[in-house]
């Protein structure tokens, strides 16, 4: 079944077509999602949401030049970017609540950072490394991040990544090059301490 036939059957609300799409694309989309999320469960959830979105949007989808796979990758990337933003926001509030405490009379007291002991040795080396890589990738400018994840995690060609990112393959190469330079700098700086 080619992409066009698959889309036509999805438009007719054929669950078998959705199953075929899941079998064909879920692992490929997962590689992108894990590059953004660095968490298996979170990446699974992203991929699941993308297919539910496909099921809901299928009757309205029309592709002339862009293919179904391009649409799926774009939705995955957008969903990941939004989720990372939301997680950051949540983490910020968790950080604040870590340092704040309600006193008996209901007032909010802010504790001094020292009293909360974030002992780095509590983490396993691997977890620490994972955190550094997650921070390093999340710190990249958005386009560099997308280009890096598509080519590195999904092993995409610059041409395919360019189609998804609506840019030229040469520009993807430049973005990936800059991303790697930045990652190298960030990781070496973090691992120094």
């Amino acid at each position, binding site marked *: 079944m080619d992409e066009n036939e698959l889309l036509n059957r999805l438009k007719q*609300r054929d*669950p078998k077509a*959705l*199953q075929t799409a*899941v*079998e064909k694309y*879920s*692992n490929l*989309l*997962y*590689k992108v999602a*894990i*590059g953004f999320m*660095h968490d*298996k469960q979170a*990446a*699974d959830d992203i*991929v*699941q949401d993308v*297919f*539910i979105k496909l*099921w*809901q949007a299928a009757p309205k989808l029309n592709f002339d030049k862009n293919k179904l796979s391009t649409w799926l990758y774009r939705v995955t990337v957008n969903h990941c970017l939004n989720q990372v933003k939301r997680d950051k926001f949540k983490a910020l509030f968790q950080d604040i609540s870590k340092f704040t405490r309600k006193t008996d009379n209901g007032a909010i007291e802010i504790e001094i950072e020292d009293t909360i002991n974030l002992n780095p040795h509590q983490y396993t080396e*691997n977890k620490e*490394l*994972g955190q*550094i*890589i997650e921070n*390093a990738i999340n710190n990249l400018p958005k386009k560099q991040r997308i280009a890096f994840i598509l080519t*590195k*995690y999904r092993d995409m060609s610059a041409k395919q990544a360019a189609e998804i990112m609506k840019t030229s393959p040469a520009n993807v190469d430049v973005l990936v090059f800059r991303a*790697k*330079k930045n*990652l*190298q700098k960030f*990781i*070496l700086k973090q*691992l120094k301490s």
Partner: protein
Amino acid sequence: MTCKSVQNNLIFYIEKSLPDKQLSEIEQHLKHCKVCAEKYQKLLAAYQFIESEKQSNVNPYLWTRIQAKIQHKPATQKTWQTVLQPVILTLIVIIGLFLGIKLGQLYTHPHTSYNYAQSLNDTTIFYPVADNESEYLLFEP
């Protein structure tokens, strides 16, 4: 080769995406320079972590989970129209019933002082009430 130029290219050395000459120069440098070798090991570990993430695969039960989701959710989402339709229909039926009763009263009591124009005046009382109610319902959650 200077330490700086080695350290600037470690990531490409790991990926083997440099010209052969440069690769062997870095290789030689790393054999003799402890500082660069240490940085190389750290970056290599980080890059291997990315490789290990890449090796993981999507949940094998993903389709089962998606299937459960799409079966529980109706294909078309509920819109205001679909929610309000039965409410408006019920209102129309109630208004119709009241009108029917009013008109019925007119016919069963032919000797009442109501004339046709008056009866219309009476029944129109129901219209603004009904209209207000339906407008109000539009903003109900």
